[in-house]
């Protein structure tokens, strides 16, 4: 006796869909215009070469990608950290202004480093000076990264400042934020790019206000180290 009537020729090629995700009431990807199974674009050339070498690209053949953002390119002048820093500088969506300011700051860095380079007498001194403003920027951000920070935790009605280890991402954010704050806090006659250039150079030499701010934070952490075990999730 026939038990089941099955539909024949159900087999057909289909495009990737995520029906269950669409059905669920709460969307997992917030208000994004893209469906949740879209992946982020891999637009840098060297990253793509790696992708094709280790065979990961084969797996992506069936998954749609999001469009590359308007500030992402595969050009050699592109740098992820600098893009991030530029977006942190940006106020009320004026991206071109932010870019202009940062480019000016980099120009300033280059000029003052070149000046130092030409003033330096010995070969040894000349070699010590970093001329690439991007490298200066990376050194500055690295030097300003804190390794600990303080978080207020309430125990028995008293708030304690407890030193807590910090994630890589957050420490990078703090470092960049401090650099920008230091550059914004200036006299009226000095412009932002100029000040930022000085701060970058100072920080890359492990001196200056931002590095001091980091050390102050570490000092506070040291003072409060007795509370370190107060931490819980």
């Amino acid at each position, binding site marked *: *006796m*026939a*038990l*089941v*009537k*099955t*539909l024949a020729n*159900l*087999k*057909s*090629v*289909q*495009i*990737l*869909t995520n*029906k*269950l995700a669409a*059905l669920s009431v709460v969307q997992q990807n917030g*208000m994004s*215009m893209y469906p949740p199974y879209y992946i*982020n*674009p*891999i*637009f840098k*050339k060297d990253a*793509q070469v790696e*992708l*094709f070498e280790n065979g990961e*690209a*084969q*797996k*992506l*053949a*069936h*998954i*749609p*990608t*999001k*469009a*590359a953002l*308007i*500030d*992402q*390119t*595969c*050009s050699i*002048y592109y740098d992820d950290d600098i893009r991030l820093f530029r977006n942190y500088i940006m106020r009320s969506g004026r*991206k*071109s202004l932010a*870019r202009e300011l940062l*480019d000016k700051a980099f120009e300033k860095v280059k000029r003052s480093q070149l000046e130092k380079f030409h003033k330096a007498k010995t070969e040894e001194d000349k070699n010590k000076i970093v001329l690439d403003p991007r490298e200066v920027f990376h050194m500055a951000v690295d030097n300003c990264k804190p390794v600990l920070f303080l978080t207020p935790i309430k125990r028995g009605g008293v708030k304690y400042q407890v030193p807590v280890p910090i994630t890589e991402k957050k420490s990078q954010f703090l470092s960049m934020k401090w650099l920008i704050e230091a550059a914004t806090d200036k006299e009226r006659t000095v412009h932002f790019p100029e000040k930022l250039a000085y701060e970058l150079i100072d920080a890359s030499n492990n001196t200056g206000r931002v590095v001091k701010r980091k050390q102050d934070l570490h000092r506070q952490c040291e003072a409060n180290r007795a509370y370190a075990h107060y931490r819980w999730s």
Partner: protein
Amino acid sequence: MLRKFNARLLQLSNNAACTQLVSKLPLCTSAPIEDANKKVVSKAMKAYLERAKEHDEFMAQKNLEFQIGKRHLANMMGENPETFTQEDVDNAISYLFPSGLFEKKARPLMKPPEEVFPQRKAAEFDLMGRPHHFLFYTGKPNFYKLLYDIVERVNECNRYEDAMNRKSIQRDPNLVLEMSGYQWLDKDALEKQCVEGINDKEYNNFKDAMERLTKLPYSYKVKDFIMEYSRPLMMQTKTHDVPELQYDKDGKAFITTYECLRKRARADVTVSSPGTGKITINGEGINYFDDIHCREQLLFPLIFTNLHKNVDVVANVEGGGPAGQAGAIRWGIAWSLRSFVDQEIVEKMRIAGLLTRDYRIRERKKPGQAGARKKFTWKKR
């Protein structure tokens, strides 16, 4: 009364012990027993037969109506009713009842009744009311049988692995079941296949079980079974055809992409080869854009494909701001360049997110709020 009694006795008579009892009873005559023998049907079966008859009649009625309707429609459209196909019916319906409804299911349709009314299961029990299927009392025998089958396959694979280990034979690393290009049967299709309603949790159970099976080292042994419940996915690059190159009177190859959209901007982009990397936007050069990042965006697809010195770009763009215009032209260039490069680079461009149309637009301001998301400062009174 006597008949009823006999009928009940007959139900018992499956047991060998009872048959003797029947024959010994003086009241029973042979004739009514034979009569009852034909008519003993369980209540469930009776109800089923009734329902089935009703359903068949209903379907026959609907089928007749459909055939008549189809002939009418063919006459209305002035075509031969004998050769009027389902495709013609669909076209006629969308012509006669044009609908602007977004939901496709809500639009008027005319389909054969077998497609419109859900399929029904045939009888799952015999005349005595005894089910055929060993999982009948789960309520969803076909679905649970499927899970049962999956576990059988898992055990089979495990047994095979054990045997291989005992013989100390290494698995051939090339024989791996690659499932990245496949998707599990979706819930609706599985429901249709099982002819049973399945809830989300059960569907997830099915997917988990299948995934467990495919992860086993020797899962390629049961490839046929796994393939039965998975569907191949389309290659993303093949979702759109690459257009053929066109040639102008100088023999220059070119492709024009119309309607390149981004935000509020709209552009028509023509890419031609051979060229020198000249970019013309609304009659101006790349200086049309003041901002560097907009210029960078224009160059992105050209640099990516290493064609920035070999092709010329002419774009007409209107609407929107500089970023939107640059984005529109970028997409237009990338979309046109597909014809100039080979399949591999098209795939690379797709992974780089150059071939995806950016549908993100400005979110509207909401009443009672300061902006799209921003709220007014909260005041108690």
